[in-house]
C-alpha cells in the first residue's frame, strides 16, 4: 500500500525559524528519511514554499477563477496531488485548468511551488 504523509504546521512559526534552526530541523528529518530510502520504502519528498507563494484555481459554474493565496475552504477535502515541471505559473495554471475541464464537478486546485524536491528511490 502506498501512503501519502502530509505535513501540517503553523507557517508563521516555521518561517520565524532562524537559518540554524531550519537547518537543524532539515538535518534531523533527513536522517529519518535516509533510513527509509535505504530500505527502498520512501518515494519523493517535497517541501513547499510558504502559502504566500500559492495560487488557487477554483472551478465554479462552467468557469474557472484564479485566486491569489492558498486553498482556504474547510468543506472540501484534499483528494490528490500532482507534481509538474513548468516554466511559469501560467503553464501550471493551464494544466490545472485542463484538469478542471476533464473533471467538471466543482473543486479547487491549489498551485504551490516547491522549495525542495528529493525524488527518492522508489522500487517500481
Amino acid at each position: 500500500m502506498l501512503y501519502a504523509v502530509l505535513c501540517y504546521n503553523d507557517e508563521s512559526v516555521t518561517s520565524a525559524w532562524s537559518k540554524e534552526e531550519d537547518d537543524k530541523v532539515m538535518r534531523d528529518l533527513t536522517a529519518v528519511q535516509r533510513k527509509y530510502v535505504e530500505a527502498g520504502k520512501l518515494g519523493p519528498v517535497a517541501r513547499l514554499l510558504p502559502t504566500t507563494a500559492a495560487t488557487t484555481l477554483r472551478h465554479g459554474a462552467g468557469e474557472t477563477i484564479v485566486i491569489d493565496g492558498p486553498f482556504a475552504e474547510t468543506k472540501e477535502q484534499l483528494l490528490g496531488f500532482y507534481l509538474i515541471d513548468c516554466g511559469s505559473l501560467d503553464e501550471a495554471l493551464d494544466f490545472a485548468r485542463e484538469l478542471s475541464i476533464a473533471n467538471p464537478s466543482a473543486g479547487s486546485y491549489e498551485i504551490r511551488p516547491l522549495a525542495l524536491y528529493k525524488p527518492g528511490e522508489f522500487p517500481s
Partner: protein
Amino acid sequence: MTETAWIDLALVSARPQAMGALLRYFRNLDQAEEAFQEACIRALKTWPRTGPPRDAAAWLIFVGRNSGIDQVRRRSRETALPPEELLSDLEDREGELADRLDGSHYRDDILRLLFVCSNPALPATQQIALALRIVSGLSVRQIARAFLVSDAAMEQRITRAKARVAAAGIPFETPDAADRAERLAAVATMIYLVFNEGYSAMNGPEGVSADVCDEAIRLSRLLLRLFPAEPEIMGLTALLLLQHSRARARFDADGAIVLLDDQDRRLWSRPMITEALAMIDKAMRHRRPGPYQIQAAIAALHARAKSPEETDWQEIDLLYRALERLQPSPVVTLNRAVAVSKREGPEAALALVEPLGDRLSGYFYYHGLRGALLKQIGRRSEARVAFDRAIALATNAAEAAYIRMQLDRLDGEAAPAVVAEEEQ
C-alpha cells in the same frame, strides 16, 4: 528545540496579531504593550505545564486583556475614577475568546498596528525603531545594537515616536477601501525602510543587522498573507528576499565590501531566490506593474544570471527606464547608469550621471560611481577628487574602505602607505 525556544517562537509569531487586538481594546500603545508582556509572562509559566494552546494568539489576547483590565482597575483605585470608555467594552470575558483570528477584526488590527508605526508624520528612523520594537518585539538593546547607537539614545527615539503617535491619534475606525490602500502603501514603505536600515548596517555587529532584514521579510510576508492579491506586496516581498539572498556574499572574511560582479554566486541563498521568483511570477499575472515589482524584476535578472557576464543588462536598462517613468528619481537614473556603462561603455554612462550632480552631490554612491567611470575613461585626477568626496560621505567603515581600495588601485600605491598618510 528546547521547550522555552518553542514558546519564544510561538510568542514571536503571535505577537503582531495579539498586539493589534490589544491596541484595539486599550487604544494606547504602552498599555497594549504592557498587557502583552503580562500575557507572555503567564504563557511562559503556564504553557510548559499545559502544553501549547490551540490558538496562541487568541490565548494571549484573552489573558492580555484581562491583565490589562486588572491594571486599569488597580490604577483607578490609586488615582481617580476609571475612565469609563476604557472599561465599558471590556467586560465580556470568555465569550470574547472567540474574538477570533479569522474574524473580520483580525486583518484590520494588524494593519492598524503596522500603520501606527508607518505614520508619515514620523521620521524614517522613528518608524523603523517603533516597528521593530512594537510589531517585531525586538528589545531596545537589540535595535540599538543593530543601528550602532546607545541603548539610551534608542530608548529616547522610541519614546519620542510613541509620543508622536499618541499626539497624531491612532485611527480606530474601520478603514474603507481607499484608507486601506493608503495604509497599505505607507506600511510597505515602512517595511522597505526597515529592510534598508538592516541592509546598510550589515557590516555592523555580526548577525544583528541580518536579523533586522529577516524581520522586514517576516513583516512583508505577514502583509502579503493579509492582502494576498496585492501585486506590489508580492513585489516587495520578492525584492527583499532577492536582496537578502546575497547577504553572505556581500562581504569578504575581513568585512570588506564585495561588489555584485565579484560575489561568489554559490553563496547566494537558493531557497530565497526560488521563493522570490515564484512571487514575481504571481505578481506579473496581475498586469499592474509598480515600483516594487520592477525593482524585484531587476534583482531577479541578477539572481538568474549564473555569472556576471550572463547578466541581461539590456533588460535591466529597460526596467530602470520603466521605473524612471513610474517614479522619477535621480537615484534611479544613477542605477540605470550602471546598466548603461555595461552596455554602451563608461562615456555614455558618465553623460547620464553628470547632470545628476546638483541633486546627488551629498550622495555617497553618486561620487563612487562617478569616480569609477572617470577611472575607466582614464581621467585619473578627476576620479581621485570624486573618490575623496565619496569617502567623506561614506556612512560606514566598509564603504570608506572600499573607496580607499579604488584609490589605491588608481595610485598604484600599497594600502599601508595610504593609512599612514591618513594618520598623520
